[in-house]
């Protein structure tokens, strides 16, 4: 309880117009520091779209497989549709200049062979095109890290462009394959038509062979009938012979005539059957010849059946011819017997008349045989014609098949390879069709080296802040005397300035030898650090001289403002507008910028500008301090008894 009361009494000390705000200011210090810092760094990644980035499209479109591939333009369009960064589509020279001078934080370059490499997708060995990202740590280190995180999204964009190109290329191939398949389809139709013709030819052949078979059947039956009739005739003639010997010697004349006629008829028959046999033989020969000419038909059952029938027909015709010949011989014998009996066997006359009936039958059957022989002829004619059609059809069939083969082969070549190694390579390339190569104009290499400018700046400012807590900014004895204000100002400024330079060099030495800062330009780095120490001391000296203890507070506020707005961490474009507005007026901005150049490398113009600005700060603030000193030759009660003192 006692402690609490004592604590309260300590706070009760802060009375008076200004002093009462001391606890309030103390309360506000965390807010000031934390809130400012968080405000400026609240969402730098969310404001990446304000970071200027140059995009260079050097891609040359190519025509591949009938498709116009312009992947670079596709990529550019893809980027325009997103607001990852603030895109500037410029040429290579401008991008380079802008990156060097800090107008752009990154450049993204699409190489000239981007489309050409993408067009190799359907080849056996697809190539992976690369997009080049160039950073410059002389413009800030963290933005490079931000770019790394954005790289995944960028890769997606590039891949999307590549996939569109692939799709184009693939659809081009598909179109070509489709055209080939359409031609194949037409060839197939021709083949079908050819095989139709072939089928019709086969049908005609079958019909012709049927005709042959029917004709042969008729012939066979006719020959059988002839045989039967001849047998009957033979029997009757035997009966007649016996009868005539006994009863009808008078009929012999008739018999002689009749037998003569019969012999004549049989002679005719014999001629017919001979002709028939000859024709049947020719028919068989024709079918056999067909078989020799078209060996492929030899295995055809229909053909074989036709050949068999033709052979049987020829055999049957031969048999018929032989029978007819025998009958003729018998008839001639009969005729001779009849002639010998003619005079003596008249009664046989009537019975011989009866012979005419079978002979009539024989004659009509012989006519039928003739018709059957005709049928064979016409059937064989049809067969010959059909085999011609068959030949034509087979030729068309062959042509169609050849066309089809050519088209299928052509289409086959369009289809990507299936060699396992090539497939795995192609799958790899297709899965991630592009790669991003990053480059850095002035690499800082490590985080510490990249952020050293920022922390050096903080260190030097803190030095200035502390220096005049311990050193007296103004020699009051000199102030009370005749000494010039400028002399007093410089006299108050120099001790801290010299100590600041030494402090800065000590810091540099520790970081260089201890941590390995290894700056690009050692003398520029140390010189710039010294100049900045002097400039920061000049500012703090002025603040302490003009505003006393309040000046120390102002210096603290300035430190916080500069931490957040000097651009030491994130690109200024990602900071809220107020920070961007004060950025060019803060001395720390120029130290950070200059140290980046001296440590990581960069443009000398930047460095010279930074040196000039920092030197300007020294001059301006020494002048301001001089004015303040001059005004302090006259005191105020407030200064005489300051309400707030450190």
């Amino acid at each position, binding site marked *: 309880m006692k402690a609490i009361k004592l604590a309260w009494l300590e706070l009760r000390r802060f009375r008076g117009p200004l002093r009462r705000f001391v606890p309030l200011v103390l309360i506000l210090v965390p807010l000031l520091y934390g809130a400012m810092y968080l405000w400026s760094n609240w969402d730098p990644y969310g404001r990446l779209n304000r970071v200027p980035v140059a995009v260079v499209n050097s891609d040359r479109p190519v025509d591949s497989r009938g498709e116009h591939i312009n992947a670079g333009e596709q990529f550019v369009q893809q980027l325009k549709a997103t607001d990852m960064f603030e895109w500037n589509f410029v040429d290579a020279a401008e991008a380079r200049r802008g990156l060097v001078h800090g107008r752009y934080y990154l450049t993204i370059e699409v190489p000239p062979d981007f489309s050409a490499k993408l067009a190799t997708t359907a080849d056996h060995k697809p190539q992976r095109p690369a997009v080049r990202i160039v950073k410059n740590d002389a413009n800030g280190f963290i933005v490079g890290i931000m770019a790394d995180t954005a790289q995944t999204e960028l890769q997606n964009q590039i891949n999307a462009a590549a996939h569109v190109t692939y799709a184009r290329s693939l659809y081009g191939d598909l179109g070509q394959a489709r055209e080939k398949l359409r031609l194949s389809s037409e060839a197939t139709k021709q083949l079908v038509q050819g095989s139709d013709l072939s089928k019709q030819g086969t049908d005609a052949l079958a019909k012709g062979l049927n005709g042959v078979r029917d004709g042969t059947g008729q012939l066979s039956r006719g020959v059988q009938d002839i045989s039967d009739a001849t047998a009957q005739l033979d029997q009757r003639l035997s009966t007649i012979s016996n009868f005539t010997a006994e009863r009808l010697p008078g009929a012999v004349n008739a018999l002689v005539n009749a037998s003569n006629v019969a012999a004549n008829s049989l002679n005719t028959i014999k001629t017919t059957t001979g002709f028939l046999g000859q024709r049947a033989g020719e028919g068989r020969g024709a079918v056999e010849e067909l078989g020799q000419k078209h060996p492929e038909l030899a295995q055809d059952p229909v053909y074989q059946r036709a050949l068999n029938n033709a052979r049987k027909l020829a055999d049957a015709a031969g048999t018929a011819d032989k029978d007819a010949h025998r009958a003729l011989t018998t008839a001639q014998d009969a005729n001779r017997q009849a002639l010998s009996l003619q005079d003596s066997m008249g009664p046989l006359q009537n019975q011989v008349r009866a012979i005419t009936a079978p002979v009539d039958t024989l004659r009509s059957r012989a006519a039928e045989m003739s018709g059957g022989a005709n049928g064979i002829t016409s059937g064989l004619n049809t067969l010959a014609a059909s085999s011609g059609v068959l030949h034509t059809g087979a030729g068309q069939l062959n042509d169609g098949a050849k066309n089809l083969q050519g088209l299928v082969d052509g289409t086959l070549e369009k289809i990507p390879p299936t060699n396992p190694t090539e497939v795995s390579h192609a799958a790899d390339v297709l899965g991630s069709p592009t790669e991003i190569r990053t480059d850095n104009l002035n690499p800082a290499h490590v985080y510490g080296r990249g952020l050293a400018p920022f922390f050096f700046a903080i260190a030097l400012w803190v030095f200035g802040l502390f220096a005049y807590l311990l050193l007296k900014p103004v020699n009051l004895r000199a102030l009370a*005397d*005749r*000494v010039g204000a400028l002399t007093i100002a410089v006299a108050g400024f120099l001790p801290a300035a010299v100590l600041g330079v030494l402090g800065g060099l000590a810091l540099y030495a520790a970081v260089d030898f201890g941590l390995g800062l290894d700056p690009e330009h050692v003398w520029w780095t140390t010189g710039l650090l010294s100049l900045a120490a002097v400039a920061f001391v000049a500012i703090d000296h002025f603040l302490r001289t003009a505003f006393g203890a309040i000046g120390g507070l102002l210096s603290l506020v300035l430190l916080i403002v500069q931490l957040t707005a000097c651009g030491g961490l994130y690109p200024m474009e990602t900071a809220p507008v107020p920070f961007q507005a004060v950025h060019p007026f803060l001395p720390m901005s120029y130290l950070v910028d200059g140290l980046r150049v001296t440590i990581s490398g960069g443009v000398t113009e930047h460095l010279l500008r930074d040196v000039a600005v920092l030197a300007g700060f020294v001059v301006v603030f020494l002048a301001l301090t001089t004015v303040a000193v001059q005004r302090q*030759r006259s005191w105020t*009660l407030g200064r*005489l008894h300051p309400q707030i003192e450190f």
Partner: protein
Amino acid sequence: MDVEGVAILARGIAAKGPEGVVFANLDLRVDPGALVVVAGASGTGRTSLLLALSGRLPLITGYLDVSGHVLPAQAKAVRQLIRPARVRPVCELENRHRVREAIAERRLISGVYEDEIEAALAKVRIAPDRTALIGDLHPAERLLFAVALTIAAEPAGILVDDVEAGLSMSARAQVWAGLREVTRTGMTVLTSATDPPSGDVEVIRLPAPEPDHRPTKVLDRQGVDAP
């Protein structure tokens, strides 16, 4: 050492600070070569008045004339005439300097020579060890050393604030004696003290501040004319 001391004439002057009026409606008159003591308790505005009379503190009203220079227009000229030997916290020696360093500083500040400082030390009758730290000097000697450094440049008037602070009775007598010696050169010595010494001094009394910080009442000049 022969100096034309400053003469001061003030009518109805007043000064104001952040916490209210420090002094108001004050009339006074100081002759050249006088030893003036602004008497009053600490916090009554003694230092402010000394600064105001030497052109180092702006007044809010009144007429002030220092050797023909009218303030505030000619404050710069007045500051050249009247130099502070010790005014807390406006002008004090650095306790951690050595005596010779303080002398070296003074030579730089005032452009005086070593022998002039020697003469001034002799005038106030001290001979400090050159290697001693200022902070180690006896308070009376320290004050007189500051006075000596200031009078070396022979200003027309000097300011010595809070003369008696931390001094024993004998030391006070030594200091007052030294300051009287300074006035013998014709220099006007403006001092402040809680209790004015006896003898030929001009005393300006300041009343204790009222708790409610209302304007200070009219203060009458009380002085004893020099013989």
